[in-house]
């Protein structure tokens, strides 16, 4: 039993954190809100050069040949920075899917290098992220996965509360030439893709939660009322301690889930669901706490907090919200009589 990251993994995390602090400050996130084209952020290429984008691809395809345990801390850092690029869908889901089931010649290499962007749309999601920069999409059609190139789908943009998230409803027609995988292999590939997306999103939620707590700690340490910093009042301290509690206890569930995915353990999906449910709740608590402790300044779009908060809302709901994932855990424990509906449209999962 060894629940530690290696020195190399920790070093990689701090290197990525430094890169993002330098090249993805809040002004870059804000610029992505204002970019009508949804183009890659200025830190996308440096992240690719560093190997983050293609980390899960084998070295023979230009990747680093690493696994989710290596990736999870980096994703957490991209959450902390509110990286505007759809890294989870591309790097944590599409790249390993292409690695596992194959694809058109050269696509895995181009995806690993960050030159081409591949988005993902599984059943249960009403929209696909990053379509305006996508060269191809991996889309689920019943029990199959298809690789659909940009000339084979049309899109209707959908507006997200988070202006950096370029969502669209996608129309396409499956054909034999677009089929990536079918049969039992597709069933397991779909399940794995979903778990990878939920895991990556959970990792980003932890980072978002940490960032919102840090931002708020800084603010309440300076903002004075009644002659002293508002952060010296117990009511504010206890709000922030509670938020930290949730985030700190979500993080190890996310790391354990990363290990479960990397090693494809029998409890993989359950572990991922525990992570996503807990991280979703923690990030939402951190967002609510951050807003409350900031007061009115946090309730503006001029101040940066809203970009982190809205990302947290979006990611908490994406890839299955907390209640949906807890329901999946309850099935794994044999507590619910029915199977989890294949449709992950969370709106129908309220009871």
């Amino acid at each position, binding site marked *: 039993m060894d*629940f530690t990251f290696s020195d190399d993994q920790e070093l990689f995390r701090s290197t990525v954190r430094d890169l993002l602090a330098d090249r993805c400050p809040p002004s870059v996130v804000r610029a992505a809100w204002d970019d009508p084209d949804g183009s890659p952020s200025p830190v996308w290429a440096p992240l690719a050069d560093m190997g983050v984008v293609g980390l899960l691809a084998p070295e023979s395809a230009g990747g680093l040949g690493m696994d989710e345990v290596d990736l999870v801390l980096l994703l957490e850092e991209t959450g902390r920075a509110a990286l505007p690029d759809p890294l989870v869908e591309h790097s944590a889901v599409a790249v390993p899917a292409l690695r596992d089931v194959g694809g058109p010649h050269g696509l895995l290499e181009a995806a690993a290098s960050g030159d081409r962007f591949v988005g993902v749309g599984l059943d249960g999601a009403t929209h696909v992220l990053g379509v305006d920069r996508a060269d191809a999409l991996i889309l689920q059609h019943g029990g199959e996965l298809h690789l659909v190139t940009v000339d084979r789908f049309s899109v209707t943009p959908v507006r997200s509360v988070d202006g950096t998230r370029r969502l669209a409803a996608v129309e396409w027609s499956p054909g034999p030439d677009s089929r990536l995988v079918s049969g039992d292999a597709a069933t397991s590939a779909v399940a794995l893709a979903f778990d990878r997306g939920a895991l990556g999103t959970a990792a980003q939620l932890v980072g978002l939660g940490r960032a919102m707590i840090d931002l708020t*700690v800084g603010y309440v340490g300076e903002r004075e009322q009644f002659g002293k910093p508002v952060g010296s009042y117990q009511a504010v301290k206890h709000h922030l*301690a509670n938020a*930290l509690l949730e985030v700190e206890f979500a993080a190890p569930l996310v790391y354990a889930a990363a290990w479960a995915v990397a090693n494809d353990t029998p409890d993989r999906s359950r572990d991922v669901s*525990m992570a996503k449910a807990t991280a979703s709740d923690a990030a939402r608590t951190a967002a609510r706490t951050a807003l409350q402790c900031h007061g009115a300044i946090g309730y503006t779009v001029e101040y940066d907090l809203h970009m982190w908060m809205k990302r947290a809302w979006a990611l908490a709901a994406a890839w299955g919200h907390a209640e949906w994932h807890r329901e999946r855990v309850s099935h794994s424990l044999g*507590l619910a009589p029915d199977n989890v509906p294949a449709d992950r449209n969370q709106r129908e999962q309220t009871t």
Partner: protein
Amino acid sequence: MDLTLTAAEAAFCDEVAGWLAANVPDEPLPSMDTAAGFERHREWERRLAADRWSVVSWPEEFGGRDLGLVEWLLFEEEYYRAGAPGRVNTNGISLLGPTVFAFGTRAQQERFLPPMARGDEIWAQAWSEPGAGSDLAAISCRARRDGAWFVLDGQKTWCSRGGFADWYFGLFRTDPDAERHRGLSYLLVPRDTEGLTVREVSRLDGDPAFAELFFEGARVHESNLLGDENDGWGVAMRTASSERGLNLRAPGRFTAAADRLVDLYRREADQAAGADHAVRRDAVVRAWIGAQAYRQYTWQTAGRLVGGATIGAEASLNKIFWSELDVAIHETALALLGDRAEIGEGDPTAVDAGAWLDGYEFALAGPIYAGTNEIQRNVVAERMLGLPRR
């Protein structure tokens, strides 16, 4: 990172589980918070000690097996999974023990640790006073130097199982003129000390689990001073860190309780009058996930400790989490019981012999003892987050 057990770890778990299966009493022991139950639990401590299972992480010379933190956590998981009796000497082996290893002289270690490990001497804490609860440094119980002796005067309270224990450990004011955190000394006091009167106080559940200690010229020899005279605060903080950190509440206790909650849901959900199953189920799963979160968090902490790190204010975060988790597990269980929630121990119709109500009452103490959770939140905010103290 490798979250599987090594072959040696798995073999260790099997060995522990095998011993427990052969030795754990079939019937639950009577409450350790009664005079008779206390002695039954002492017998169980002796049974554990006879096969060297009472203090597995201690050095062999003091009755342990010299095992590391990982093995201790695995032992605790097996222990609670097997439904083994509560540990009546937890205050000794989990709190005072580590403090004696850290601050005791060689002579003190040889004097106090082996009988502690054997269950021959069972310890109770003596911290709080009528005027000093959360604000522990406000204690006024005096210990006046008289040659090789300390003369104690004053009152201690909320002393758990103090009516039955053999020894007490606590803080006493040895220099009343010093600044309040200074001038305190950490003393070990035998129950049979002349001038010490013990009065039992019934706890929320009706058991005589608390005691008040009245010291009137009680004499304690200086060989019972742990750490330096007037330097007891630092020694006490070591004990408090054990209490809030890993030592007192291993995750095995809560993962086992959460598993029993899941089992209760399976048995009871259909009978709970008017229960909304999805809502109830969500609460059950939430509690179960909470226990798993505590487990993974603890493995993470253990990894850091094995790597040479120390736990500081994180112990406060830890204490808030397990104490609130324990309440949540038991509240959820009582909700599943519907109107049978009020039927407790002693009534033949009580579900699981009233263990859930009993556990709920015990859990409610968690956010209060070991420093209230409000104090822990202050510690987290000030020392982990760096918020201004005032």
